[in-house]
């Protein structure tokens, strides 16, 4: 190994499929999973003489995104033709935006662990998707399905601001959450609604110029993204260290082998000959339209995070975690409303801890639209019984588990059914303590000799004797008082 330290530089281009009913330039349905070519209209298959007409809703989605990332919404943007031949591109050109995209600049905050970073966006532009080439054997030929052709996409291009695969994944996840949050994309990565291309290069630490980049195409899961980038980075470093220069290329990631390889199609032939599409006049977005869209936007994650910190006194980490998805945030706020905002921290802990953990264990994801088996009001019921000292944490978890699987109608019912009331009568606890102290003289001795562990052991004995129903804090206090006398 050479001594050179390498810095990784990553920029992402993300194709988000916009949540519209019809295609971007035709009235065909964009529903997923139809038989081949039944959702391919005259416009989609590019019959001679047909013309594109832009879907207003696709523009609304772009405006929403621009507002959500603090970008400039171009008052006038231009659709251009990107010319190349490919069988799944029926017109021989893709309608996209080139010189003047609809969304310019902006950015979003990402977090890797506890570290926060701001990733700048270059632009986001509207374009149409291509169809699908099916390479399975059709008499040794490739089959073309144009149902996807013309599906509206917002291509979101980041600056090369990321310095590790972890940052790239964090950015992709933040973006994935955001586009779902604002309702412009269903986020379904299996169906290709959210696909990333990663531009990856390496350079010696301290070098100003970027290295030559290779573009990894079509990363459709976060795990693959991480694997592909890690492999690619190592490959590039090895190449350079062995004296070979990196050639600019488009590469594909093979998830079976975990490797990237350059595409066989000739990149050098690409000269897209962009020019303004003469069929489409300039797209005008007035301040009034932007204001109208703005009014329809939900509270954005960053604003919500700030509010969680200032209004509920949550830590930055908790606020960020809870505002990672709109569903999670809503669940938290509903719980809080029912439990009382003075219990914010407790609500946060329960949502991030028990609820998230249990969902994860059950293979569910709140952001994927899975309904949480436990209604927020039920969780609030548990929390109220913790704060009024009816339940210890341990008991509360038992109640939680019972309610999660649908046992009983609420926390109080579980408490009653299982006799889970916490003992808070100090007289009763004191008599148990007296008993424990009497039978554990050795521990008492050790405590007085300065061994803290002995104290814990005594607490444990008391808790055991009360079958866990005593309030641990109360046990602590009373025990210390007794031992001090």
């Amino acid at each position, binding site marked *: 190994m050479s001594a050179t330290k390498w810095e990784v530089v990553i920029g992402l281009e993300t194709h988000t499929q916009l949540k519209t009913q019809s295609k971007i330039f035709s009235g065909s349905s964009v529903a997923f999973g139809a038989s081949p070519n039944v959702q391919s209209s005259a416009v989609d298959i590019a019959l001679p003489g047909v013309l594109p007409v832009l*879907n*207003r809703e696709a523009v609304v989605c772009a405006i929403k995104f621009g507002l959500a990332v603090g970008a400039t919404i171009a008052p006038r943007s231009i659709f251009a033709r990107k010319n190349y031949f490919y069988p799944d591109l029926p017109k021989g050109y893709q309608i996209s935006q080139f010189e003047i995209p609809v969304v310019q600049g902006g950015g979003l905050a990402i977090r890797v662990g506890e570290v926060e970073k701001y990733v700048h966006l270059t632009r986001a532009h509207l374009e149409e998707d291509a169809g699908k080439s099916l390479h399975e054997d059709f*008499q040794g030929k490739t089959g073309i399905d144009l149902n996807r052709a013309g599906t509206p996409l917002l291509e979101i291009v980041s600056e090369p601001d990321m310095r590790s695969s972890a940052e790239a994944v964090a950015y992709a996840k933040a973006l994935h959450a955001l586009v779902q949050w604002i309702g412009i994309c269903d986020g379904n990565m299996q169906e290709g609604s959210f696909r990333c291309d990663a531009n990856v290069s390496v350079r010696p630490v301290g070098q100003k110029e970027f290295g030559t980049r290779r573009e990894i195409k079509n990363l459709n899961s976060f795990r693959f993204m991480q694997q592909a980038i890690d492999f690619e980075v190592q490959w590039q470093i090895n190449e350079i260290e062995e004296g070979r220069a990196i050639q600019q290329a488009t590469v594909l990631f093979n998830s079976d082998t975990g490797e990237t390889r350059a595409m066989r199609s000739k990149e050098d032939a690409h000269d897209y000959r962009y020019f303004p599409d003469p069929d489409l006049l300039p797209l005008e977005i007035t301040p009034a339209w932007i204001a109208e869209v703005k009014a329809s936007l939900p509270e954005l994650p960053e604003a919500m995070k700030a509010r969680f910190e200032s209004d509920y006194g949550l830590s930055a980490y908790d606020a960020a975690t809870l505002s990672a998805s709109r569903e999670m945030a809503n669940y938290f706020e509903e719980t809080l409303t029912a439990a009382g905002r003075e219990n914010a921290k407790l609500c946060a802990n329960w949502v991030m801890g028990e609820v998230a953990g249990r969902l994860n264990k059950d293979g569910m994801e709140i952001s994927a639209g899975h309904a949480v088996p436990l209604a927020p009001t039920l969780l609030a019921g548990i929390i109220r019984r913790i704060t009024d000292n009816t339940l210890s944490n341990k008991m509360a978890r038992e109640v939680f588990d019972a309610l999660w699987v649908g046992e009983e109608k609420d926390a109080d019912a579980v408490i009653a059914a299982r006799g889970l009331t916490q003992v808070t009568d100090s007289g009763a606890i004191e008599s148990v303590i007296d008993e424990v102290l009497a039978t554990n003289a050795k521990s008492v001795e050790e405590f007085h000799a300065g061994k803290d562990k002995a104290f814990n052991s005594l607490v444990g004995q008391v808790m055991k004797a009360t079958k866990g129903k005593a309030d641990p804090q109360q046990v602590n206090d009373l025990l210390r008082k007794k031992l001090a006398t």
Partner: protein
Amino acid sequence: MSLNQEGVGRIARLARIELSADESVATQDQLNDILGFIARLQAVNTTGIEPMAHAVDVVQRLRPDCITETDRRADFQAIAPEVDGGLYLVPKVIE
């Protein structure tokens, strides 16, 4: 800016038009005649002139997001060179 044989070949490849060797030579001459003819545009001072992409100075009209198309695959594929199982067939594409 005149075109040599290599340039003609590059453009023909971009345009996906096969040219035989003879055609390529004839094409080179014709294209250079035309390029010579349009070269006079270069002499015009257009500083500060906004390019005009459309014949009319209006902005784009937008369509409501409605599904208006129905399945016409059978009609459309009746005129296709080669189809199978609803798919258009082309020679094997290698990525």
